[in-house]
């Protein structure tokens, strides 16, 4: 797959958005809306809160467009702002998050038909419970690591925390997740891969 034309397109979209082209800006929003919305959704635990957060992130982007250097920088900038905004909201109103079975993620709404999807559903349920219990910073680390597939160094930069703190958040969250899955009899201790040092 040749990525060159796509990169050129998105770079040109960014340039045109900086020049005031609303259509190009809309293109940038469409390009990154899933990522930003999902960060908000998994951190705040609700669709409305996620939409509100995503809107605020894109408003901020609109005001700061001239500081965006490239399309890669744009992705990093959006992830950083979305995660930090979500952390701020969780810290300001820690009891307003809506992690519950009523607001469970859409991927959990439709029951899977085969065994493999069943495992995924159970994992998603355990994950959903875990996310509701994690501290804001730890939630952000997990979302950036496993949803956005970012490396530890980038997460540390985005969240302005030491690399070792990021690693420790990941390790503790994975341990807690394993515990939840064992507790729910989803997997047995023998099925678990050995913990990495």
């Amino acid at each position: 797959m040749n990525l060159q034309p796509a990169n050129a397109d998105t770079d040109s979209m960014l340039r045109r958005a900086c020049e005031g082209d609303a259509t190009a800006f809309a293109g940038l929003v469409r390009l990154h809306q899933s990522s930003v919305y999902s960060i908000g959704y998994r951190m705040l635990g609700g669709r409305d809160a996620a939409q509100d957060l995503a809107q605020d992130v894109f408003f901020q982007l609109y005001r700061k467009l001239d500081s965006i250097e490239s399309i890669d920088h744009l992705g990093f900038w959006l992830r950083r702002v979305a995660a930090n905004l979500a952390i701020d909201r969780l810290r300001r109103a820690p009891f307003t998050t809506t992690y519950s079975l009523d607001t469970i993620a859409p991927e959990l709404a439709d029951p899977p038909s085969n065994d493999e999807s069943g495992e995924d559903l159970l994992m998603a349920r355990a994950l959903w419970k875990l996310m509701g219990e994690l501290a804001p910073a730890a939630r952000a680390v997990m979302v950036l690591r496993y949803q956005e597939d970012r490396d530890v160094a980038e997460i540390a930069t985005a969240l302005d925390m030491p690399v070792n703190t990021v690693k420790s958040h990941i390790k503790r969250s994975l341990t807690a997740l394993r515990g939840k899955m064992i507790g729910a009899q989803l997997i047995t201790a023998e099925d678990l891969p050995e913990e990495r040092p």
Partner: protein
Amino acid sequence: MSEDIENQLRRAMRPLDPPEGFAERVLRALPERGPRATLASVAVLHPAPRAKLWRRLAGPTALAASFVIAIVMGHYVAEYQADKERRAGLEASRELMDALRVTSKKLDQAYEAVNRPPPSPPAAEENRS
């Protein structure tokens, strides 16, 4: 089940699409909560170089102005203080001169009183004649 928990986690955390029409709603809301997405508003969002230059220079200019004002005020205060001291000195000098003049007068009077020849007794004159 033996699949790496991290891969399972990645699958469980796939990015989700926002509700239909999200991008359009963001764009529609921009004029209400932010500048309008037109070329004119872009001029506001991205101010002209002159405005940017002024914004960049505002801080240093204010600092320099404060510095100049502090120097001028300092100079004025120092001058006022010196003038006050000079006047006090002149006043003290004048008072000293007055005091010396009075003292000198008193000394002259005392000197005259001491050196004046005693008057001759009239009774002795009469006896001699």
